[in-house]
């Protein structure tokens, strides 16, 4: 039998690995494209808000130039329009709101995450959610009719004892036997108190979510070393939740800067560059727009839209920074169960 030696076959191409990644099915390709399009539509909307407001503000900015940012009064009859006073008023109201809201939100968030009895925790979380769901106009009513009569006593006390400080000065005699209550009623301070009710739940919800994620191992380690609960908070929870604290507060600040209805109910409009937050009369950007929109002529409308554009840029900057800080702070955002 002849042994047939197999003829050397022509060299085969080196084996290629099988393609493991199959192409997407048609339905998946559509799904991918569709969900991406919808997801990016939110970006498109955000951009469109900016673009449309920006386009509308071109005539105003061309007409007034940089004076639009430095003029104090809002006086369309004499063609003197500017947002210096309203920007200051916006900042004042937001400042008061944050000074009140920050400690309350932080304290409440810590209370929920670390101190509350276990049965109360669910209820307190619900309370925060409910507080966020209550419409701002209702906080406006609350601030105007219930809070104001009590808060003016506080205003008066502050101006009596700290009147030398420009923020707390009021242009009237705080020590008079019959004190002029009307000088205190519609101030940036009281508007800020009402706005703080809207800022608290926003900030608190973010902070609580981050505090709850503080690693349990580190908490228990701190306790095992003999730490008190406050020790655990100071050394574990607060350092871990720093991003959430900053981000949540800034998100609340963005909300406070743009709050409209409650502020428009409480404040009596005044266009002044004054630091006196306890004195009646101030104006914020959003309340200015809400108050003058109905009766505005075409050119005034453009001016109001410009004010809105400025407000948009400010709040977008604040909110985006906040969102960025928050997203950095929860690095393990995806929870795989």
């Amino acid at each position, binding site marked *: 039998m002849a042994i047939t030696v197999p003829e050397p076959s022509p060299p085969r191409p080196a084996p290629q690995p099988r393609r493991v990644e199959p192409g997407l099915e048609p339905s998946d390709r559509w799904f991918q494209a569709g969900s991406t399009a919808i997801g990016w539509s939110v970006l498109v909307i955000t951009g469109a808000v900016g673009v449309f407001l920006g386009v509308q503000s071109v005539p105003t900015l061309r007409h007034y130039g940089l004076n639009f940012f430095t003029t104090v009064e809002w006086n369309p009859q004499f063609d003197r329009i500017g947002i210096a006073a309203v920007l200051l008023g916006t900042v004042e109201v937001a400042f008061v709101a944050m000074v009140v809201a920050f400690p309350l939100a932080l304290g409440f968030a810590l*209370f929920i995450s670390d101190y509350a009895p276990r049965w109360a925790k669910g209820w307190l979380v619900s309370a925060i959610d409910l507080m966020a769901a209550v*419409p701002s106009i209702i906080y406006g009513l*609350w601030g105007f009719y219930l809070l104001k009569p009590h808060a003016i006593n506080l205003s008066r006390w502050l101006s009596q004892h700290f009147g030398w400080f420009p923020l707390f000065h009021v242009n009237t005699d705080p020590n008079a036997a019959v004190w002029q209550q009307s000088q205190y009623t519609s101030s940036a301070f009281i508007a800020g108190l009402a706005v703080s*009710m809207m800022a608290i739940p926003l900030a608190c919800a973010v902070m609580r979510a981050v505090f709850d994620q503080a690693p349990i191992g580190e908490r228990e380690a701190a306790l095992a070393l003999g730490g008190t*609960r406050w020790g655990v908070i100071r050394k574990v929870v607060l350092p871990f939740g720093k991003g959430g604290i900053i981000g949540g507060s800034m998100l609340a600040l963005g909300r406070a800067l743009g709050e*409209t209805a409650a502020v428009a109910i409480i404040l009596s409009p005044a266009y002044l560059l004054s630091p006196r937050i306890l004195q009646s009369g101030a104006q914020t950007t959003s309340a200015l*727009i809400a108050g003058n929109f109905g009766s505005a002529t075409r050119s005034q409308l453009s001016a109001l839209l410009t004010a809105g554009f400025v407000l948009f840029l400010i709040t*977008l900057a604040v909110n985006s920074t906040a*969102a960025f800080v928050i997203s950095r702070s929860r690095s393990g955002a995806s929870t795989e169960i």
Partner: protein
Amino acid sequence: MTTTTVHAPATGRPAPRAQTRRAPRRIRVLTFDDWMSLGGSLLSSLALVVVVYEHLVDGSGTLGFLVVWYLTFLAIYAGVVAMSNPRPIVVDRLVTTALWAISGVVVFALSTTLVYTLARGWQAFTHLNFFTRTMAGVSPTAPLTQGGILHAIVGTFIEVGIAVLISVPLGIGTAVYMAETAGRGPRFVRTVVEAMTALPEILAGLFVYALLIIHGFPKSGMAAAIAMAVTMTPIVARAGEVSLRVVPGGLREASYALGASRFRTVRKVVLPSAKAGLATATILGVARGVGETAVVLIASGASTFMAINPVKNPMNSLPLFIFTAVKTGEPLQIQRAFGAASVLLAIVLALFVAARVFSRDKAGNR
């Protein structure tokens, strides 16, 4: 806190020694001693403040009294605790009382808001016409037996309904994109969505004004609904994403292992599993939309009559009715405003309870 492993727990019978040594240190239990120092400090500070503040200094106002009482309490309590405890424990106790006080203030503020609104709205509620009539042809000074807020209630429902039709598909679609796609794109979108949740509502109104109304679109319920959808979409998207993320990854992988495509997995596995969470997200969005004032003010404007057609006439809504009624300063209009505020609050509370019930179902199913 102070209870160390050596002591038996304050309540209950003392456990055998061997077990006690292994029991974890109780950090939430107050001993008899702790309760006494707390109660004693409260009482003694109250007595001191009543004597000094009320009778000697002649202080004014309940608010001042409470603040002074609290500060006195803190001082006395710190002293009492310091008598038998080291410094870290004193600090811990003071922080504890401060956090209890802060939480009390927040809960108190929230409950006064709810109670006060409902209490003052009660007067308007006693007139049936308040719910069945509109304000058309009724002067603001007319008594409560005339006119009503039916137009505002109907307007609110129509506007929010249209806004839901727009924002829920958009919001849940965005949530799917953020939760089911990996990479840099979804992360960026998530940041923007988070920023948009705090977008001032008045800017959404101005946006629709600059987009549509300037070009001839009528000021109407439709315009208000579109603006509302702009603010509601990010809220639905963010809350929806959270609920999609808690769908166990194992379910997805099981679906892939059976050969399902990604679209089919999302449609048949992920979305049905997250149904309750998505319903909650929708309700959260609706609760936000229902309360928006400035949006309706700018995109629609107030009216006193009933408007059913969303693209024709200005359509009022409850928040805007409250706003304009309060702005008139008429006592009767203010009563109506509180009546409308109570209706609005009742709607929000009902939505809130619904959201709770839905999310509890979700917890029970898993």
